[in-house]
């Protein structure tokens, strides 16, 4: 069935179809309509979930942790400052190995109060142990939310998963989305069985004191899961492709085969970059695109081209563009552009300009250092 709706409503629909037992969320612009739509589903009886209204995002994540710790499937949604308020509990969810699924609508961080797209909110959570997906279309939002449950709940992984997408550019834009039948989703997602849970009949303590050596092992176990996740994400993406006709991997490679230059970016910028690649190809340029689907785990193995142009909608002050800074650059020519922060519009024409700059050996802050 084709549904035409906004990114937020599509995220809510996907969450509904994954049938979480517990939803705890706090509204924040531009995520609000995700929460409103889910509350409506619960109110109307379409979704049989416990909807917990909380007083903050920190509490939203804590409520999800509590629910997940008794073995429930959970969902929440947030954005920007809300995500930052959750920060402590993001670590907790991941170290407790609870496969909570959350959508984060990317929005700039204040001050200057700004509600538009900027990936710094979620990219700053990179070390919390959450798997992170970035979507470039509403279809990808839907597909990523469904796959997130299967990936996070896989017993080789057991990590929480965040699905990120641009505020307003996707969250409030209606697009056609192919939505499978409920039975097909039920068939795709296995019933979640947690490997540990708080149970009054079999009491355990969670979050107890852990001496140094076992703590080191806990952290290493998380790293092993994150590495394993690369394999599981591709397995699940392939199975999703077989069932629903849209296959996914860690990255999407677009016209890269004979490319002299490859653009590396993610989120809505990658959709613009695809158009830029087509237009530049029409003019005889050999250029391709690697669209990162996951930022954590980071798909280094796909970024092996000699000349790459990295476009970041986020930066680490004192270092540079975040994706750019994480690239392995030995023996490669890599150009980094920081562009579109705080929702500055970046379209395919801007990306074509970045390509022209890179060819001349120039990069930097697009719109300030290079215009």
């Amino acid at each position, binding site marked *: 069935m084709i549904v035409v709706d906004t990114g937020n409503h599509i995220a809510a629909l996907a969450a509904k179809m994954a049938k979480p037992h517990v939803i705890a969320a706090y509204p924040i612009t531009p995520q609000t309509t995700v929460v409103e739509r889910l509350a409506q589903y619960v109110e109307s009886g379409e979704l049989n979930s416990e909807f917990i209204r909380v007083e903050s995002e920190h509490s939203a994540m804590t409520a999800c942790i509590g629910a997940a710790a008794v073995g429930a499937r959970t969902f929440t949604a947030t954005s920007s400052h809300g995500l930052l308020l959750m920060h402590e509990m993001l670590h907790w969810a991941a*170290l407790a190995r609870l496969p909570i699924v959350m959508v984060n609508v990317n929005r700039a961080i204040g001050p200057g109060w700004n509600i538009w797209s900027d990936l710094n909110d979620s990219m700053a959570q990179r070390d919390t142990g959450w798997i992170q997906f970035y979507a470039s279309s509403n279809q990808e939002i839907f597909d990523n939310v469904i796959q997130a449950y299967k990936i996070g709940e896989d017993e080789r992984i057991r990590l929480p998963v965040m699905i990120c997408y641009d505020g307003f550019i996707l969250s409030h834009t209606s697009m056609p989305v192919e939505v499978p039948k409920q039975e097909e989703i039920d068939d795709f997602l296995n019933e979640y069985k947690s*490997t*540990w849970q708080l149970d009054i009949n079999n*009491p*355990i*303590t969670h*979050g107890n004191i*852990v001496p140094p050596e076992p703590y080191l092992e806990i952290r*290493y176990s*998380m790293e092993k899961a994150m590495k394993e996740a690369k394999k599981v994400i591709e397995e699940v993406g392939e199975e999703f492709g077989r069932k629903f006709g849209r296959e996914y991997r860690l990255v999407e490679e677009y016209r890269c085969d004979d490319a002299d230059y490859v653009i590396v970016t993610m989120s809505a910028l990658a959709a613009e970059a695809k158009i830029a690649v087509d237009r530049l190809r029409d003019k005889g340029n050999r250029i391709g695109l690697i669209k990162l689907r996951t930022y954590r785990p980071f798909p280094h193995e796909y970024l092996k081209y000699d000349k790459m142009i990295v476009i970041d909608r986020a930066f680490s002050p004192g270092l540079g563009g975040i994706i750019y800074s994480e690239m392995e650059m030995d023996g490669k020519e890599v150009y980094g552009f920081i562009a579109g922060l705080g929702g500055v519009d970046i379209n395919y024409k801007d990306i074509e300009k970045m390509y022209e700059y890179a060819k001349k050996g120039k990069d930097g802050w697009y719109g300030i250092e290079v215009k």
Partner: protein
Amino acid sequence: MIEKTAISIPTEGAMGKTGTWRVFKPILNKEKCVRCWRCWVFCPDLAISRGDYPVIDYEYCKGCGICANECPTNAIKMEREEK
């Protein structure tokens, strides 16, 4: 379970012999003890059990002194541990 996380199953000595943490040791004077069992009720480590009189398990008693504080007849004295 494949994932490692911080879970502890309640068992005796899950954190080792916590008696080694002790600086002050509770000593019971049976002549003053009226067997009201307040020390048994209040011991946070279940290190006091009920015999004819309270029995203190020095393997796990951390020497917190709550029993001595709660004792209505001052039958428990905290004495510096000889090392």
